Protein backbone atom coordinates (compact mmCIF):
# COMPACT_ATOMS: atom_id res chain seq x y z
CA UNK A 1 0.00 0.00 0.00
CA UNK A 2 2.87 2.32 0.94
CA UNK A 3 4.76 1.74 -2.33
CA UNK A 4 1.52 2.24 -4.26
CA UNK A 5 1.04 5.64 -2.66
CA UNK A 6 4.69 6.56 -3.34
CA UNK A 7 4.22 5.58 -6.97
CA UNK A 8 1.17 7.80 -7.37
CA UNK A 9 2.95 10.67 -5.59
CA UNK A 10 5.88 10.39 -8.00
CA UNK A 11 3.51 10.31 -10.96
CA UNK A 12 1.48 13.24 -9.66
CA UNK A 13 3.54 16.11 -11.22
CA UNK A 14 3.43 14.47 -14.65
CA UNK A 15 -0.28 13.73 -14.36
CA UNK A 16 -0.92 17.29 -13.21
CA UNK A 17 0.96 18.79 -16.17
CA UNK A 18 -0.71 16.36 -18.59
CA UNK A 19 -4.09 17.23 -17.13
CA UNK A 20 -3.62 21.00 -17.18
CA UNK A 21 -1.94 21.27 -20.59
CA UNK A 22 -3.41 18.25 -22.40
CA UNK A 23 -6.67 16.90 -21.09
CA UNK A 24 -8.42 20.06 -19.84
CA UNK A 25 -7.73 21.99 -23.12
CA UNK A 26 -8.98 18.99 -25.12
CA UNK A 27 -12.29 18.91 -23.26
CA UNK A 28 -12.55 22.70 -23.48
CA UNK A 29 -12.07 22.57 -27.27
CA UNK A 30 -14.60 19.72 -27.45
CA UNK A 31 -17.04 21.85 -25.43
CA UNK A 32 -16.43 24.88 -27.68
CA UNK A 33 -17.01 22.81 -30.81
CA UNK A 34 -20.70 22.48 -29.87
CA UNK A 35 -21.07 26.25 -29.43
CA UNK A 36 -21.15 29.36 -31.52
CA UNK A 37 -18.72 31.73 -29.91
CA UNK A 38 -17.25 34.94 -31.21
CA UNK A 39 -15.87 36.81 -28.19
CA UNK A 40 -15.38 40.00 -30.24
CA UNK A 41 -18.89 40.14 -31.70
CA UNK A 42 -21.80 42.26 -30.49
CA UNK A 43 -23.02 39.22 -28.55
CA UNK A 44 -19.89 37.66 -27.01
CA UNK A 45 -21.78 34.87 -25.19
CA UNK A 46 -21.41 31.21 -26.08
CA UNK A 47 -24.54 29.84 -27.73
CA UNK A 48 -25.10 26.07 -27.74
CA UNK A 49 -25.80 24.96 -31.33
CA UNK A 50 -25.49 21.15 -31.03
CA UNK A 51 -23.70 19.52 -33.95
CA UNK A 52 -24.16 22.49 -36.30
CA UNK A 53 -20.43 23.23 -36.50
CA UNK A 54 -19.81 19.64 -37.62
CA UNK A 55 -22.76 19.82 -40.02
CA UNK A 56 -21.19 22.97 -41.46
CA UNK A 57 -17.72 21.47 -41.90
CA UNK A 58 -18.85 18.41 -43.87
CA UNK A 59 -20.21 20.83 -46.48
CA UNK A 60 -17.38 23.37 -46.27
CA UNK A 61 -15.54 23.17 -49.60
CA UNK A 62 -12.57 25.21 -48.35
CA UNK A 63 -12.08 22.92 -45.36
CA UNK A 64 -12.42 19.74 -47.44
CA UNK A 65 -9.94 21.10 -50.00
CA UNK A 66 -7.47 22.02 -47.27
CA UNK A 67 -7.90 18.58 -45.73
CA UNK A 68 -7.16 16.94 -49.08
CA UNK A 69 -4.03 19.06 -49.57
CA UNK A 70 -2.92 18.24 -46.02
CA UNK A 71 -3.34 14.51 -46.56
CA UNK A 72 -1.39 14.71 -49.84
CA UNK A 73 1.31 16.77 -48.15
CA UNK A 74 1.55 14.36 -45.19
CA UNK A 75 1.69 11.31 -47.49
CA UNK A 76 4.43 12.61 -49.78
CA UNK A 77 6.47 14.17 -46.96
CA UNK A 78 6.34 11.22 -44.54
CA UNK A 79 6.93 8.51 -47.16
CA UNK A 80 9.89 10.43 -48.63
CA UNK A 81 11.34 11.10 -45.18
CA UNK A 82 11.13 7.44 -44.18
CA UNK A 83 12.78 6.23 -47.41
CA UNK A 84 15.53 8.88 -47.48
CA UNK A 85 16.00 8.65 -43.70
CA UNK A 86 16.43 4.87 -43.89
CA UNK A 87 18.97 5.16 -46.72
CA UNK A 88 20.96 7.78 -44.82
CA UNK A 89 20.82 5.68 -41.64
CA UNK A 90 22.16 2.66 -43.56
CA UNK A 91 24.90 4.89 -45.00
CA UNK A 92 25.84 6.12 -41.52
CA UNK A 93 26.29 2.55 -40.26
CA UNK A 94 29.34 2.30 -42.57
CA UNK A 95 32.68 4.03 -42.24
CA UNK A 96 33.59 6.67 -44.81
CA UNK A 97 35.75 9.76 -44.94
CA UNK A 98 34.07 12.79 -43.31
CA UNK A 99 31.34 10.71 -41.65
CA UNK A 100 31.39 12.74 -38.40
CA UNK A 101 31.24 16.02 -40.29
CA UNK A 102 28.40 14.79 -42.49
CA UNK A 103 26.42 13.58 -39.47
CA UNK A 104 26.75 17.00 -37.80
CA UNK A 105 25.81 18.97 -40.90
CA UNK A 106 22.96 16.60 -41.67
CA UNK A 107 21.48 17.04 -38.16
CA UNK A 108 21.63 20.85 -38.19
CA UNK A 109 18.15 21.46 -39.72
CA UNK A 110 16.61 19.79 -36.67
CA UNK A 111 17.71 22.62 -34.38
CA UNK A 112 16.35 25.37 -36.62
CA UNK A 113 12.94 26.73 -35.62
CA UNK A 114 10.19 26.01 -38.20
CA UNK A 115 9.45 29.71 -38.64
CA UNK A 116 13.10 30.31 -39.55
CA UNK A 117 13.08 27.36 -41.95
CA UNK A 118 10.06 28.87 -43.67
CA UNK A 119 11.65 32.31 -44.00
CA UNK A 120 14.97 30.89 -45.26
CA UNK A 121 13.20 28.79 -47.88
CA UNK A 122 11.15 31.82 -48.88
CA UNK A 123 14.35 33.73 -49.50
CA UNK A 124 15.81 30.79 -51.42
CA UNK A 125 12.74 30.46 -53.65
CA UNK A 126 11.92 34.12 -54.32
CA UNK A 127 12.31 34.48 -58.13
CA UNK A 128 14.47 37.60 -58.27
CA UNK A 129 16.88 36.84 -55.41
CA UNK A 130 16.57 33.13 -54.60
CA UNK A 131 19.32 30.63 -55.33
CA UNK A 132 16.90 27.85 -56.33
CA UNK A 133 15.07 29.74 -59.15
CA UNK A 134 18.45 31.07 -60.33
CA UNK A 135 20.02 27.63 -60.81
CA UNK A 136 16.83 26.01 -62.09
CA UNK A 137 16.71 28.70 -64.76
CA UNK A 138 20.44 28.51 -65.52
CA UNK A 139 20.65 24.71 -65.78
CA UNK A 140 17.20 23.69 -67.04
CA UNK A 141 15.61 26.90 -68.29
CA UNK A 142 12.79 26.44 -65.76
CA UNK A 143 11.20 29.56 -64.30
CA UNK A 144 10.27 28.70 -60.69
CA UNK A 145 7.69 31.03 -59.19
CA UNK A 146 5.91 29.67 -56.14
CA UNK A 147 3.84 32.85 -55.98
CA UNK A 148 1.94 31.90 -59.14
CA UNK A 149 2.52 28.18 -59.79
CA UNK A 150 0.35 26.11 -57.41
CA UNK A 151 2.02 22.77 -58.18
CA UNK A 152 5.51 24.21 -57.70
CA UNK A 153 4.44 25.80 -54.41
CA UNK A 154 3.08 22.48 -53.15
CA UNK A 155 6.22 20.58 -54.20
CA UNK A 156 8.49 23.14 -52.56
CA UNK A 157 6.57 22.86 -49.27
CA UNK A 158 7.01 19.08 -49.38
CA UNK A 159 10.74 19.42 -50.16
CA UNK A 160 11.14 21.93 -47.34
CA UNK A 161 9.50 19.54 -44.88
CA UNK A 162 11.70 16.68 -46.10
CA UNK A 163 14.80 18.84 -45.69
CA UNK A 164 13.77 19.84 -42.18
CA UNK A 165 12.64 16.53 -40.73
CA UNK A 166 14.55 13.74 -42.51
CA UNK A 167 17.42 14.00 -39.96
CA UNK A 168 14.99 13.05 -37.18
CA UNK A 169 14.01 9.93 -39.12
CA UNK A 170 17.66 9.16 -39.83
CA UNK A 171 18.62 9.40 -36.16
CA UNK A 172 15.76 7.20 -34.91
CA UNK A 173 16.29 4.57 -37.61
CA UNK A 174 20.06 4.68 -37.09
CA UNK A 175 19.53 3.98 -33.39
CA UNK A 176 17.25 1.07 -34.30
CA UNK A 177 19.64 -0.38 -36.89
CA UNK A 178 22.78 -0.26 -34.72
CA UNK A 179 20.97 -1.94 -31.85
CA UNK A 180 20.00 -4.98 -33.96
CA UNK A 181 21.70 -8.27 -33.05
CA UNK A 182 24.38 -9.44 -35.53
CA UNK A 183 23.54 -13.17 -35.48
CA UNK A 184 20.51 -13.21 -37.81
CA UNK A 185 22.43 -11.25 -40.47
CA UNK A 186 25.46 -13.56 -40.28
CA UNK A 187 23.25 -16.63 -40.47
CA UNK A 188 21.36 -15.20 -43.46
CA UNK A 189 24.65 -14.47 -45.25
CA UNK A 190 25.87 -18.02 -44.56
CA UNK A 191 22.59 -19.33 -45.99
CA UNK A 192 23.20 -17.31 -49.16
CA UNK A 193 20.56 -14.60 -48.77
CA UNK A 194 21.10 -11.55 -50.97
CA UNK A 195 20.92 -7.94 -49.72
CA UNK A 196 17.28 -7.47 -50.70
CA UNK A 197 16.23 -10.68 -48.92
CA UNK A 198 18.15 -9.64 -45.80
CA UNK A 199 16.48 -6.23 -45.89
CA UNK A 200 12.97 -7.55 -46.53
CA UNK A 201 12.97 -10.59 -44.23
CA UNK A 202 15.29 -9.53 -41.39
CA UNK A 203 16.03 -5.81 -41.16
CA UNK A 204 12.56 -4.48 -41.94
CA UNK A 205 10.62 -6.75 -39.53
CA UNK A 206 13.13 -6.06 -36.75
CA UNK A 207 13.03 -2.27 -37.07
CA UNK A 208 9.28 -2.15 -37.72
CA UNK A 209 8.40 -0.75 -34.26
CA UNK A 210 10.97 2.05 -34.71
CA UNK A 211 9.60 2.85 -38.18
CA UNK A 212 6.07 2.91 -36.82
CA UNK A 213 7.00 5.24 -33.94
CA UNK A 214 8.78 7.55 -36.39
CA UNK A 215 5.83 7.53 -38.79
CA UNK A 216 3.49 8.39 -35.90
CA UNK A 217 5.63 11.36 -34.86
CA UNK A 218 6.08 12.66 -38.40
CA UNK A 219 2.46 12.06 -39.42
CA UNK A 220 1.14 13.98 -36.42
CA UNK A 221 3.58 16.82 -37.14
CA UNK A 222 2.80 16.91 -40.87
CA UNK A 223 -0.94 17.05 -40.25
CA UNK A 224 -0.60 20.16 -38.09
CA UNK A 225 2.04 22.03 -40.06
CA UNK A 226 1.43 25.78 -39.87
CA UNK A 227 4.42 28.04 -39.33
CA UNK A 228 6.80 26.79 -42.04
CA UNK A 229 4.15 26.92 -44.73
CA UNK A 230 2.79 30.22 -43.45
CA UNK A 231 6.22 31.80 -43.84
CA UNK A 232 6.95 30.17 -47.20
CA UNK A 233 3.73 30.62 -49.14
CA UNK A 234 1.14 32.11 -46.76
CA UNK A 235 -1.17 29.30 -47.93
CA UNK A 236 -1.07 30.38 -51.56
CA UNK A 237 -1.12 30.75 -54.45
CA UNK A 238 -4.91 30.69 -54.08
CA UNK A 239 -5.45 27.90 -51.57
CA UNK A 240 -2.86 25.49 -53.03
CA UNK A 241 -0.88 25.21 -49.79
CA UNK A 242 -3.54 26.23 -47.33
CA UNK A 243 -3.16 23.16 -45.16
CA UNK A 244 -5.67 22.42 -42.47
CA UNK A 245 -3.58 24.03 -39.69
CA UNK A 246 -3.51 27.28 -41.64
CA UNK A 247 -7.22 26.96 -42.34
CA UNK A 248 -7.94 26.62 -38.59
CA UNK A 249 -5.72 29.62 -37.89
CA UNK A 250 -7.63 31.71 -40.43
CA UNK A 251 -10.99 30.64 -38.99
CA UNK A 252 -10.00 31.21 -35.37
CA UNK A 253 -7.88 34.39 -35.51
CA UNK A 254 -8.82 36.67 -38.43
CA UNK A 255 -12.48 35.52 -38.40
CA UNK A 256 -12.59 34.91 -34.58
CA UNK A 257 -15.00 32.00 -35.09
CA UNK A 258 -13.83 29.95 -32.12
CA UNK A 259 -16.64 27.38 -32.17
CA UNK A 260 -16.16 26.37 -35.80
CA UNK A 261 -12.36 26.41 -35.46
CA UNK A 262 -12.66 24.10 -32.46
CA UNK A 263 -14.87 21.71 -34.43
CA UNK A 264 -12.30 21.53 -37.23
CA UNK A 265 -9.53 20.97 -34.66
CA UNK A 266 -11.46 18.07 -33.13
CA UNK A 267 -11.98 16.48 -36.54
CA UNK A 268 -8.27 16.84 -37.40
CA UNK A 269 -7.38 15.21 -34.08
CA UNK A 270 -9.88 12.47 -34.84
CA UNK A 271 -8.39 11.85 -38.31
CA UNK A 272 -4.86 11.80 -36.88
CA UNK A 273 -5.86 9.20 -34.30
CA UNK A 274 -7.66 7.11 -36.91
CA UNK A 275 -4.65 7.10 -39.24
CA UNK A 276 -2.22 6.24 -36.44
CA UNK A 277 -4.52 3.50 -35.19
CA UNK A 278 -4.91 2.02 -38.68
CA UNK A 279 -1.13 2.03 -39.09
CA UNK A 280 -0.77 0.32 -35.72
CA UNK A 281 -3.35 -2.32 -36.65
CA UNK A 282 -1.82 -2.84 -40.08
CA UNK A 283 1.78 -3.14 -38.94
CA UNK A 284 2.16 -4.34 -35.37
CA UNK A 285 -1.14 -5.17 -33.64
CA UNK A 286 -1.23 -8.82 -32.51
CA UNK A 287 -3.63 -10.82 -34.68
CA UNK A 288 -6.23 -13.25 -33.35
CA UNK A 289 -5.13 -16.80 -34.15
CA UNK A 290 -8.17 -18.65 -35.47
CA UNK A 291 -7.03 -22.26 -35.54
CA UNK A 292 -9.17 -25.23 -36.55
CA UNK A 293 -9.32 -26.34 -32.91
CA UNK A 294 -10.60 -22.93 -31.81
CA UNK A 295 -13.11 -22.80 -34.63
CA UNK A 296 -14.51 -26.16 -33.60
CA UNK A 297 -14.62 -25.26 -29.91
Amino acid at each position, binding site marked *: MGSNRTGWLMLAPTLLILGVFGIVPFFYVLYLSFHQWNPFAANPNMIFIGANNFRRLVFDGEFLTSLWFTLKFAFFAVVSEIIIGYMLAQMLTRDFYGKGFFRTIHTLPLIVAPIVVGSVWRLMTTPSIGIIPYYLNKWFGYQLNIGSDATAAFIITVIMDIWHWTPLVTLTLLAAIVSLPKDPFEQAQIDGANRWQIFWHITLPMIRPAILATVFIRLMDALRTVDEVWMLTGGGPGAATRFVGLHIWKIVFPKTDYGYGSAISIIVLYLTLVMCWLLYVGLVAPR*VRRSKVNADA
Partner: protein
Amino acid sequence: MESPSEIADVPVRKPARHGFLPIVTNWFDRLFIGIYLFVALELFWMRFLEQSIPLAVCHVLAIALGVLIVWKG
Protein backbone atom coordinates in the same frame (compact mmCIF):
# COMPACT_ATOMS: atom_id res chain seq x y z
CA MET B 1 3.80 -26.89 0.31
CA GLU B 2 3.04 -23.37 -0.94
CA SER B 3 1.80 -20.80 1.53
CA PRO B 4 -1.50 -19.01 0.76
CA SER B 5 0.39 -15.77 0.05
CA GLU B 6 2.56 -17.54 -2.59
CA ILE B 7 -0.52 -19.01 -4.24
CA ALA B 8 -2.12 -15.56 -4.32
CA ASP B 9 0.93 -14.14 -6.17
CA VAL B 10 0.57 -16.56 -9.10
CA PRO B 11 -1.06 -14.62 -11.97
CA VAL B 12 -4.36 -16.04 -13.11
CA ARG B 13 -4.31 -16.50 -16.88
CA LYS B 14 -7.65 -15.72 -18.46
CA PRO B 15 -8.74 -17.82 -21.45
CA ALA B 16 -8.10 -16.15 -24.82
CA ARG B 17 -11.02 -14.05 -26.00
CA HIS B 18 -12.40 -14.62 -29.50
CA GLY B 19 -14.46 -11.71 -30.83
CA PHE B 20 -15.25 -10.93 -34.46
CA LEU B 21 -12.47 -8.31 -34.73
CA PRO B 22 -9.31 -9.66 -36.38
CA ILE B 23 -6.97 -8.21 -33.72
CA VAL B 24 -6.44 -8.92 -30.04
CA THR B 25 -8.31 -6.25 -28.07
CA ASN B 26 -9.26 -5.35 -24.51
CA TRP B 27 -12.51 -3.57 -23.61
CA PHE B 28 -10.89 -0.13 -23.88
CA ASP B 29 -9.66 -0.87 -27.44
CA ARG B 30 -13.16 -1.87 -28.42
CA LEU B 31 -14.63 1.25 -26.80
CA PHE B 32 -12.10 3.29 -28.79
CA ILE B 33 -13.07 1.56 -32.06
CA GLY B 34 -16.74 2.07 -31.19
CA ILE B 35 -16.21 5.82 -30.70
CA TYR B 36 -14.22 6.05 -33.97
CA LEU B 37 -17.03 4.41 -35.88
CA PHE B 38 -19.67 6.47 -34.06
CA VAL B 39 -18.03 9.73 -35.19
CA ALA B 40 -17.40 8.46 -38.74
CA LEU B 41 -20.99 7.32 -39.12
CA GLU B 42 -22.37 10.61 -37.75
CA LEU B 43 -20.25 12.70 -40.16
CA PHE B 44 -21.15 10.47 -43.11
CA TRP B 45 -24.84 10.70 -42.22
CA MET B 46 -24.74 14.50 -41.90
CA ARG B 47 -23.04 14.80 -45.29
CA PHE B 48 -25.06 12.34 -47.36
CA LEU B 49 -28.22 11.07 -45.63
CA GLU B 50 -29.55 13.70 -43.24
CA GLN B 51 -31.66 15.38 -45.95
CA SER B 52 -33.79 12.23 -46.23
CA ILE B 53 -33.32 10.36 -42.91
CA PRO B 54 -33.16 12.17 -39.53
CA LEU B 55 -29.90 12.11 -37.57
CA ALA B 56 -31.66 10.40 -34.64
CA VAL B 57 -31.70 7.18 -36.69
CA CYS B 58 -27.93 7.49 -37.02
CA HIS B 59 -27.57 7.96 -33.24
CA VAL B 60 -29.45 4.70 -32.63
CA LEU B 61 -27.49 2.77 -35.26
CA ALA B 62 -24.12 4.15 -34.13
CA ILE B 63 -24.80 3.38 -30.46
CA ALA B 64 -25.99 -0.12 -31.35
CA LEU B 65 -22.84 -0.67 -33.41
CA GLY B 66 -20.69 0.60 -30.53
CA VAL B 67 -22.38 -1.71 -28.03
CA LEU B 68 -21.98 -4.65 -30.44
CA ILE B 69 -18.26 -3.96 -30.86
CA VAL B 70 -17.61 -3.56 -27.13
CA TRP B 71 -19.65 -6.66 -26.30
CA LYS B 72 -18.80 -9.06 -29.14
CA GLY B 73 -15.83 -7.53 -30.95
